[in-house]
């Protein structure tokens, strides 16, 4: 079961690091798409099925928080898995993101921690004690 993933970050280096981490962490990958901000991400999501979006918070044009709200407000995208990968240090904002069904991974991160987050997320409703919410698996691949 291959996972289509979109990496959304305005930094080309960060996108390369996340993509490399995805390849290292043992997840079976399908297509890996990239976008430089929330606007680009929504444009690409309109034409391609993506199982998991890995999104940064601080981005130009449309930040990750707004992108998450747009995803959850779109019936075609609302069930998509989302992990926010960010330097965000405010528990207030992190709680807001988690309340929208996103998991949170703080930069810097290891490929192992990314892999664990993805496996836990896809594994269903297994609580990990982190407060992250598990979403039901959905979409054409599941």
């Amino acid at each position, binding site marked *: 079961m291959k996972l289509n993933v979109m990496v959304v970050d305005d930094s*080309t*280096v960060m996108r*390369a690091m996340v993509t*490399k981490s995805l390849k290292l962490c043992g997840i079976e990958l399908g297509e890996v798409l990239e976008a430089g901000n929330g606007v680009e991400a929504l444009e690409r999501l309109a034409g391609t099925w993506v199982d998991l979006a890995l999104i940064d918070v*601080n981005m*130009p044009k449309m930040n990750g928080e707004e992108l998450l709200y747009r995803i959850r407000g779109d019936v075609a995208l609302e069930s998509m898995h989302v992990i926010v990968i960010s*330097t965000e*240090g*405010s528990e207030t904002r992190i709680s807001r993101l988690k309340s929208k069904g996103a998991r949170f991974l*703080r930069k810097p991160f290891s490929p192992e921690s990314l892999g664990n987050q993805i496996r836990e997320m896809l594994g269903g409703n297994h609580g990990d004690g982190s407060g992250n919410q598990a979403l039901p698996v959905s979409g054409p691949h599941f």
Partner: protein
Amino acid sequence: MAMDLETKLYQSAARTFEEVCFLLTLREPAPDKPPAAEREVGVRIGFDGIFHGALEITCPASIAEQLAQAMLGGEQPTAQQRQDAFGEISNVITGNLLPAIVGTELVFDVTAPAVLAGQEPLSWRPSARVRLRSDEGPIDLALYIEGYQPEPKT
């Protein structure tokens, strides 16, 4: 005793360089103004919340190259990747630093990192200045904060 801003800046920066780029650094006295020859690559990142300000990082081009290469797993970076890597490092340092200063409850909006060259210098005095020494040379950090009242030292 409240930890001073320079110590918080130093700890956030040293940890970031070590964890993100495997670059070990030592703290050394910061000059009032870094020599021009060492300011070959620079980035500024702004933040806005209970107070606003900016963090500026400057270093020789060879260090920026090394940082980007480490982040890319040894690949030779393009000029864009070199700049992006430096910007991402400033983002991570800022993300670690702000909660260290004000705690984790308050929300800050952080701007996209911008190349320092060609920008108007900030008119405020830096609230903290730190120099880190690496094998390749110095890395200078200057933290500008407006509207912040530090806890009095006891």
